[in-house]
Structure formats: structure tokens, C-alpha cells
């Protein structure tokens, strides 16, 4: 990038004074354009979808979606933006940032340090790599959304709208009441991630290949000749054996409950 071309910046902080302070500082720096202000990570992604900023300054602790989660979703943009985290005080996060050379700014932010961060962004340094993303994952309390890339834009799926997650060959199908999405993650990885957070309570594994949101289960039924979805979404009618299926709210799909999980039905 040319040294004096305009660098597009989005800032995200839930506190108005903190945003004002950043705006003041940015007004003192040349060749930058503030293209958006967000109150949380979700807003930052919505803005980034249209504005295609070069640099995002993300506060770590924000309601709705925190900065760390927003950073992981932003990786799905066609052109990955530079990300600099901002925080007033967060020992835990700072250790991880230091260890993995992830850019951050401490609030109150110094003009010179902001300038340095912007210079780095101009020099195309500061795009998070896979290792760094892996390192910040444990800092995430519990993800609020799944994200997918559709025609260069990030589509966010609130985790509360997810009815079930089903493992496919290389992907995981995410089912909401409206449609299905494919995400490039493994079900085991997701299950492990959930187990570390409060989401572990929200989802239950009914089958080897399926995690179901407890709130969407409305009942169980005993079926003899299966017409329900099994592995890889194929219809299974091989046996006349009876088995249990879970009935779901809002959608006609049913989930076969594997033998090992059948004790869940009785309880």
C-alpha cells in the first residue's frame, strides 16, 4: 500500500467516551479515514462487510459480541483486515497477545502508539495468522455466533437460532429454522469448544454425528421403520428395528438417537 493512500479504519467500543477519544486521536493522524463506529463486535462486522476497512480497532470486552470473537469472524472477509485489540486492562488477554505477537493498544491510548499501529497496517503487517487465531481462542468466553462467507460477505448466525449441528464428510451442517449452512469446522472441535463454556449446557449430543440445542427438542418418539435423518443425511430403511428419534421445534426434521444416548430419552 502506498504510504499516503487513505487507510480505512473502523473502531469498536461499547463506551462512547472511549470512541470519542479514539476519534480525537485519529483526527490528529494523516491519511486515515474513519469509515465506521461500532458499539460491539456484531456492529463492527456489519460495517466491515460494506466498508471493507483496512484496519479495525476492537475493544476486547463488549456486550453482544466481544472483540476476540469479532476478530475470528472477520477472518472470513475476502480481504482480511488488520486487527488491533484495545483494552483498558486485561491481564489474561495481554499475556496471550505478548506471547503471540498480536497487536494491541492499552487504553488510554497514546498517539505515538496508535501511529505505530497504523504504520504497521500500512506495511501490511498485523493480519492475524492461524497460529495467532488459535492462541486467542481460549480468551473467548462463549461464542455468540457462527459465521460463514457468502459472496465475500460475512453472514452471522446467532447461536441461539441454531437447532442442530450435523457432521458431514468435511463440513458441519448448521440448521436453523430457515435454512441450512455449511461451516468448515469439525463437530468434535466444536463440541470441545462448547464444553469449555456455558454452551456445553445448551447443546446435547444425541447421535455420533449430531449436536442438538436442548431448547429446540420438543419430544421423543419411537419409530420402527426409519424415515429420519441418519449419518450424512441419508434415509435409513435398512432395518425394521425400532429406535428413538427426537422431534424438533419449527422444523420437520427428526434426529435419530443412538443406542448409547437412549438413556437420555428416559430421563
Amino acid at each position, binding site marked *: 500500500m502506498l504510504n499516503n493512500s487513505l487507510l480505512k479504519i473502523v473502531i469498536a467500543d*461499547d*463506551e*462512547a*467516551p*472511549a470512541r*470519542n*477519544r479514539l476519534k*480525537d486521536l485519529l483526527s490528529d493522524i494523516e491519511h486515515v479515514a474513519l469509515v465506521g463506529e461500532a*458499539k*460491539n463486535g456484531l456492529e463492527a462486522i456489519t460495517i466491515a462487510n460494506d466498508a471493507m476497512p483496512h484496519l479495525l480497532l476492537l475493544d476486547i*470486552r463488549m*456486550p*453482544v459480541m466481544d472483540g476476540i470473537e469479532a476478530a475470528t469472524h472477520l477472518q472470513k472477509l475476502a480481504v482480511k483486515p488488520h486487527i488491533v485489540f484495545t483494552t*483498558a*486492562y*486485561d491481564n489474561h488477554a495481554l499475556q496471550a497477545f505478548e506471547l503471540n505477537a498480536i497487536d494491541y493498544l*492499552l*487504553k*488510554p*491510548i497514546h498517539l505515538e502508539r496508535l501511529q505505530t499501529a497504523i504504520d504497521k497496517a500500512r506495511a501490511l503487517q498485523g493480519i492475524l495468522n492461524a497460529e495467532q487465531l488459535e492462541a486467542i481462542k481460549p480468551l473467548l*468466553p*462463549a461464542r455468540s455466533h457462527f459465521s460463514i462467507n457468502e459472496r465475500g460477505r460475512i453472514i452471522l448466525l446467532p447461536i441461539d437460532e441454531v437447532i442442530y449441528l450435523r457432521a458431514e464428510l468435511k463440513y458441519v451442517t448448521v440448521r436453523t429454522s430457515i435454512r441450512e449452512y455449511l461451516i468448515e469446522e469439525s463437530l468434535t472441535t466444536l463440541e470441545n469448544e462448547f464444553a469449555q*463454556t*456455558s454452551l456445553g449446557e445448551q447443546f446435547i449430543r444425541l447421535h455420533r454425528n449430531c449436536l442438538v440445542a436442548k431448547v429446540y427438542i420438543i419430544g421423543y418418539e419411537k419409530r420402527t421403520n426409519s424415515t429420519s435423518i441418519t449419518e450424512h443425511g441419508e434415509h435409513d430403511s435398512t432395518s425394521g428395528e425400532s429406535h428413538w428419534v427426537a422431534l424438533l421445534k419449527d422444523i420437520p426434521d427428526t434426529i435419530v438417537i443412538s443406542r448409547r444416548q437412549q438413556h437420555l430419552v428416559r430421563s
Partner: protein
Amino acid sequence: MRKSSRIPNFRNLGINLRLLIIVNVITTLAAIFLSSGLSGFLLSLTTLLAFVLPILISSMLLLYAAQPALNKLPYFAACGIILLVLPLITLLFLSQTSDLLILDATQSSVRPVLFTLLVTMIVLYYFNLQHRAYSPAMAEARLQALQARIRPHFLFNCINAVLSLIRTQPKRAETALEDMADLFRVLMADNRDLVPLAQEIALCRQYLALEKLRLEERLNMTWQIDNMPPEALIPPLVLQPLLENAVYHGIEPLPKGGEIIINVKSIAKEIHILISNPYSISHNQHIGNKMALGNIKERLLLHFDLEARLTSAFKNNRYEVHIVIPHLKNTNA
């Protein structure tokens, strides 16, 4: 409140409760040794209790009345008096009731008197040990260690907010810095003495004014303190950390914010403080909360022993902390 005298405070609920328990346990043990079989045990327990309880209760009443006088005496003199007077009460009691009691009339009064003496010595020794464990030096050291520490998060966010005001609203920046100065003066002071409730409330208002600067319309407060005795004493910085928790765990995770309700009232010689904030499980993964509560609980214990309580509960999507402390006034501090 913890007295400087080593004589146990016989007007303290906790001390009296321990007294009752210790004496009854010893009596029960004595009954076990004196008897064989269950019915024998029950018989000797009733007999012993009929004899022990009146003496115990009259002794406790006497000690309650004599507390101010005992406090003026040196420790060993006071103990000597107690060890002399309590067996005398026993003797008096025996002489008045010898005709009516089931006790063996032929038995001399030596054994009951010795029993009283022994139990009194055990109790005094126990309180002495306990006092040493919680001796003023120890208690002070612990109080100091437990002194409320403000979240660094708050300090830096606050400075940041003030910085944002300097260019556009210098007047508000001035007020904010003044509030910060007051707040940090209290935080850095030696906070081992009780302060009037009104002072703590004023500090809380300054603290919340600073938070309001950052969180703006997301932070709403409701003060229900019309029935608050402003002169009642409270350990300093008990309420402020609770409000800090309420802001950090209750308000900050909510995009639209919420309301913190502070209710302080006096009921029957006790001060009740209720602080409640919105709480949604899905937004909260922090455990820091528990530590602040434990810290405050321990400070209340050191100041008031069993006469203070701290409880917390989730009610209708709100988190509520309830503190009860005895209503102390400056005069008897």
C-alpha cells in the same frame, strides 16, 4: 465490635452462642461417662441439665451485666473474679434447691462446684485461645490484606473517559477528576475503622457518577434510602465493591444497560442493605464475583462476628446481595 480487652465480650451474640454450645457439649459428655445404657444416659443428662442450665443462664445474665466492670479490670483479675463468682452461684443454687432436687441429698456439694469451676476454666481458656487467634494484630493484618481493591479495569477506563472529555467538555472533565481524587483517597486510606453510612453512600454516588460517564444512559440507579440512619456505622468500602460488581457483571454485558437498585433501611436495631442488578446467565462467564463477596464477608465477620450476615441470590433475572449489620452508633464505638 472487637474490644481491645482480652475478656470475651459477653454481650456478643456469637460469644454467648459458643458459651451455650460448649457448656451443653461438656454436660452431655459428662452424662455419657456417668451412665451406662441409653435410658441411664437420658436420666443422668436430664438430671445434669436441670442442674446446669439454671446456673449457666444466671451466670450469663450476670456476666452480661458485669461486662463494663470486667472490661476495666486487668485480664487475670477479671478471670479470677469469674472463677470465684460462678462456683459461688453454684453453691447458692445448691443450697436453695437441695430439698427439691433429684440429686443425691447425701452427696456433698464439692462435685458440682468443682464441675462449674472446671467448665468455667475450659470456657475461659477457649476464648483466650480464640482471642489470640483473632488477636488485634492478626485481625488488623487481615483487615489490611482484605482491604477493597478497585478493579484496574475501572481506573484505566475512567482515565480514558476523562481524556475524551478534555477537548470538548472541560467542565465535566474537572468534576470527574475531582470525583476520582475523592474515590482514590478513600481507597488508599487506612480503612480499618468504621465510618458513618452516609459517608459510604456519598462515596458510592461519586463512584457511580464516574461509571455513568463511561456507560451513559446504559447505567440507571435507583436509591431507596429514605429510611436510612445516616449515622449508623459500617466498615468502609463494603458497598462500593458490591456496586462495582453490579456494574461489571450486571450492566456492562447488556447492550441496552439496566438498573441498579440500592435499598438501605433500618429494622429492629439492624441495618439491611440490598443491592440488586440485572443478570443474565448467558452473558456472564466471570467468576471474579465470588472473590469480592468472600472478601466482604470476611471483613464483616472481623468487625461484627456473627451479628452480620451477607447473602446473595438470583431472583427473576436479577442478582441480589443482602447485607445485615447491627445498628451501631458513634457513641459506643
